[in-house]
C-alpha cells in the first residue's frame, strides 16, 4: 500500500525546474502527482511518477540531489467534507502528518491525496480499519 515518492532539491536558480522536467521527458517519465514547496533559499519538488526507479537514476545521473521516500495515497470522495473525513480519522488516531498534496485518480474519476506521515504502517492499518481506500503502487506504475 506504500508508494514511492521522488523528492528533488531545486536550487534557487532560474529555469532549474524546467531542467528537471526536460530530464524526465527524455526518459519518458510520466508525472502522476507533484507538489513544489519553497523556502527563501531553495525549492523541494516531490513527485509520484510511473517509473520511480528510472526517475531516480536519471536524475542522479544529471547531478540532482534526489531521494526516494515512501508515502501513502488515499482515495478521497470528490465532495465537500471528503478530505475532512480522512483527516478526522487520522487526528483521532494520533497520526502525525508531515505534508499532503493532491492527485487525480483518472480511472475512478475520483480524487486522491498523497500523505507523508511519520508512521506509514500505523496509518495504513488505521485507514484500512475505517474502510478508506488506498491506492497501491501497481495502479500508479501502470
Amino acid at each position: 500500500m506504500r508508494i514511492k515518492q521522488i523528492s528533488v532539491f531545486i536550487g534557487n536558480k532560474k529555469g532549474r525546474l524546467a531542467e528537471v522536467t526536460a530530464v524526465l521527458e527524455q526518459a519518458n517519465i510520466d508525472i502522476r502527482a507533484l507538489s513544489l514547496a519553497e523556502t527563501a533559499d531553495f525549492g523541494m519538488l516531490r513527485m509520484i511518477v510511473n517509473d520511480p526507479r528510472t526517475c531516480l537514476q536519471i536524475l542522479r545521473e544529471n547531478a540532482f540531489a534526489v531521494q526516494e521516500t515512501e508515502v501513502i495515497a488515499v482515495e478521497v470522495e470528490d465532495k465537500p467534507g471528503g478530505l475532512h473525513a480522512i483527516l478526522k480519522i487520522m487526528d483521532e488516531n494520533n497520526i502525525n502528518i508531515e505534508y499532503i498534496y493532491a492527485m487525480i485518480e483518472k480511472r475512478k474519476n475520483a480524487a486522491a491525496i498523497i500523505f507523508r506521515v511519520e508512521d506509514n504502517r500505523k496509518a495504513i492499518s488505521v485507514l484500512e480499519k475505517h474502510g478508506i481506500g488506498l491506492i497501491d503502487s501497481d495502479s500508479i506504475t501502470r
Partner: protein
Amino acid sequence: MIWNKECESMNAGALKKVQIKRLKDRVQKIYDNVPFYKKRMDSLGVKPGDIQELQDIAKLPFTTKDDMRDVYPYGLLAVDPKEIVEVHTSSGTTGKPVVDAYTKNDIDLWGEVMARTLSMGGTTSHDVLQNAYGYGLFTGGLGVHYGARKIGVNILPISGGNTKRQLMIMSDFHTTVLTCTPSYSLYLAEAAREEGVDISKLSLKTGYFGAEPWSENMRKEIEESLRVKAYDIYGMTEIIGPGVAAECQNQDGLHIFEDHFYPEIIDPSTGKQLPDGEKGELVITTLTKEGTPVLRYRTRDITYLEPGTCSCGRTLRRIHRLLGRTDDMLIIRGVNVFPSQIEQVLFEIEGVEPHYQLIIERHGQLDDLEVQVEMNDQLFSDEIKKLEQIEKTIAHKLHATLAIHARVKLVEQKSIPRSEGKAKRIIDKRQI
C-alpha cells in the same frame, strides 16, 4: 624513541640560554655578512647589540618569500661561496625560486633534525625506508636521505613516480617505512588495489608525510588503506627543507626543533607577537644555519604553539597541525576567519569532505558572510523543516567556532564551480 635526548628534552631554562646565545651570535654574523639584512636592520635602527634577550627578537625585521626571491640567487649568503657544499631551491612555479645554500655544518644539521624526525615515529637502523620524495633540487628527497643515513636505516632512494616499480620494490625489499607526499601515498594505495597487491602482506608500518597540507581525515584514509601509522612532518626550503618540526607518536602537534629554529606566532595583520596557545602566523628564525640564515621568516602558515608538556618526554614546544594559510585568511567584521575552520565545522556535521563557497559582501558598514553548502545524499531530506534545521545547525556551529554570524544556504550539488579539482571557495565582493 628520542634521537637526541640532551637537546630534545632540555629543560626550559637551559633551552632559553642556548636560544639566546645562538640568536645573538647569528644576528651579529648576519649583520656583518649579509648586506640585505644590514640595510633592513639599519633602516629599523636595530644593531646586533640590541638583541640581549629572546623577546628582543621582535625588534628584528621580518623576511618574506618575496624578499628571498628578490635577492636570488645568492643575496642571503652569509659565508664565503667556497664554504657552500650543496644548493637546493624551491620549485619556483610562481617566479624565481628560493635558494637554500648549505655549508658542511648545515648538511650535518639537516641530517640531525631529520634523524630526530624519523626517530619520532620509532624508525631505527633495523628499518628499510623507501624514500619516494623526489631527489634533486627539491629538499624532500635528500633531506629524508641524510636523516635516514644518520640513523643507519637501509635506504631505498627510489625518488618519486613509477608507481608499479614502487610497489614491486616495496614488496621485494620488505619496506617498513614510506616517505612521500600524503597525496602520493594515497595514489600508491589505490594503485596497489588495482594491481592486486595485498597491502596486508607488505611489511609497511610507518609513513612520514609532508610537503603539502593534509587533513586529519586524510590521515585516517592513509592509515587504513596503507596500514601504517602516518606522521605529519613540516619544513620548507626557506628554512632548511623538511626537518623543522615533526609529530611524535602521540600525533598531537608537531615538535618544533626550536634549539635550531626559533618559532614565534604573530598576528598576520599587525605583525605583533602572540602568546602560546593563540592562533596566528608562524614565523621562524634560524639559530644555527650558516649558509643562508634567515631572520623571522613569515611562513604564511596559520597555527598556534601548543602549551603544556608532551608525554613523549620531549620538551620542545609543539605547533598544532596547520590550520590554514594567511593568503586565505579573511577578516570579517574584524574577526580573522580561515576557510579551514569553516571546512572543519562542515566536516563534523556532514561527515564527508564538504563543498562550500564563502561569499562576503558589505552592506553599509557591515560585512555579511554567506556560506553556501552543496546539498548531497547524506544531507538530503524530503522534509523542508529538516533541511532548514541543517542550515540552522551549521550557522550555530559556525558561530560557536568563529564568533561571527553567517547566513547558511544550501545549494544544489555540483553548483559550486570546481577548478582543477579544487573549488573556488571565496568570493569577496567587498569594495574597501
